[in-house]
């Protein structure tokens, strides 16, 4: 899923304060799972904004509303569109995709992001999410025991660890696992360590975002 974190309150409040009536729009998919922008978090932020505006004597009316997905046109129903039109601006609790989708849909409204979108990740434990995929467009994790060096090595090294791997930790931070120690250990468990002798050639980054914004077309399902 896409993992995001809420922006500092002051940053959101500064944007909201430029308007009299804002719609806080939550998203019911990824950011609900990572507890950043779902219905619950939308409610909490709406209350904070109302409280702060009252305390500071700012004339601000906050409406809250959450839709199933902000990255899909079908969920922007009539109710949502009406609420948007009735507001001076929208504060999206969706990821960066949701913010842009919303902005495209309502070109006469300014849409502010309430979240910082971080990465594609997994839930490690309650309240902890971690990056697992860099979306490079050409998956090669099978060569590395199912562990991605592009996303999980700080230097995206494809041919083994740098000199900074010590006791299973990455040199950038003792809290970060060395991806290459994990790759080595896993390949050893699989009895495939020998495969790491193979020199991985230069990666074709044209499938990555480096090739420009990407689009996937699945012709057999297009209307």
């Amino acid at each position, binding site marked *: 899923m896409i993992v995001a974190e809420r922006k500092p309150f002051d940053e959101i409040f500064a944007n909201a304060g430029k308007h009299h009536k804002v719609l806080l729009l939550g998203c019911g998919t990824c950011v609900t799972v990572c507890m950043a922008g779902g219905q619950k978090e939308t409610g909490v932020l709406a209350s904070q904004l109302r409280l702060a505006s009252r305390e500071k004597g700012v004339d601000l009316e906050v409406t809250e509303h959450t839709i199933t997905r902000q990255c899909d046109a079908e969920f922007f129903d009539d109710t949502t569109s009406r609420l948007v039109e009735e507001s001076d601006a929208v504060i999206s609790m969706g990821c960066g995709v949701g913010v842009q989708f919303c902005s495209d849909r309502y070109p006469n409204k300014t849409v502010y992001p309430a979240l910082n979108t971080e990465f594609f990740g997994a839930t490690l434990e309650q309240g902890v999410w971690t990056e697992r995929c860099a979306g490079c467009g050409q998956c090669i994790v099978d060569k590395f025991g199912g562990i991605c060096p592009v996303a999980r090595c*700080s*230097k*995206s*090294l*494809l*041919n*083994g*660890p*740098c*000199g*900074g*791997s*010590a*006791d*299973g*930790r990455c*040199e*950038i*931070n003792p809290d970060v696992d*060395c991806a*290459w*120690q994990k790759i*080595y*250990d896993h390949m050893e468990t699989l009895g495939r*360590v020998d495969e*790491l*002798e193979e*020199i*991985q*050639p*230069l*990666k074709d*980054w044209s499938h990555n975002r480096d090739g420009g914004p990407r689009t996937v077309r699945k012709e057999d399902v297009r209307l």
Partner: protein
Amino acid sequence: MSVTTLKSGSMLERVLVSGKFAVTSELGPPKSADVETIKEKAACLKGVCDAVNITDNQTAIVRMSSIAAGVLAMREGLEPVIQITCRDRNRLAIQADVLGAYALGIRNILCLSGDHQRFGNHPTSKNVFDMDSIQLVNVLKRMRDDKVFACGDEIRNSKKAPLVAPEIFIGAAANPFGDPFPFCVTRLGKKMRAGADFVQTQCIYDMDRFRRWMEMVRDRGLHEQIYILAGVTPLKSLRMAEHMRDNVAGLSVPDHLIERMKSAADPKEEGEKIAVEQMQELRDIPGVAGIHIMAIEAEKSVAGLAEKAGLLPRPIVD
């Protein structure tokens, strides 16, 4: 080996090919456009080593470019080994710089991943890592031997123009102390197969572990296919020894050395004494082809160390 088989003709290559024990050192470019510092440092190293590494934004701190500083050092009579990291440039920029470096007379290049920018003075920058150090070694080898760029295009101005490819002696780093330990030798083998002619190791304090690593290297016969220069950094103080032990990832300083530094009346002198002993010991380990003296910001001390270790005078190999 006859002269005609030389890959680059650099002094470092000639010394190693002739079977003589090589000595390299290091010169850190200034954190400014100051040329005088390079001249001063170069004067300390002239005649003391066969070639001198010119670091590339080491520890991710901005300095004068390694190619520019290398050319300035060359004017002072040194032979540079230009370091290139994969952190700051992509494959276009690096290949362009390799052509430029060669055109300016540079014959040795050392390929590195590069310290993460988090450690330097621009921690908010974006890193590149378009390729890793092993891939970079292979790009240089293909440029030199196959006379092609990474994309496969020939290194010539037009179809009818002659091929003018950079003939570079290719180096890489080796860390005998990194984890996972068995992979340290695998990495060396990969660097050799990718096309590295020589490696310089991380500085060695834990001689027992280095000996074990060299045994693994010899078991694979790697020492016969790649020149291994053992890294030595003299300890200047007890604080430095403890810092190396505690804060430098993948580097261990054994207790007996910490004890010696602690009880020494003159720690700096003791550190140099330890370094000389290490160099003499390393020289006798089968498969070690030379010493790489990294006296960090202490270029003045290198001549004395090399002298005491019996590494002077340096040979002139035609």
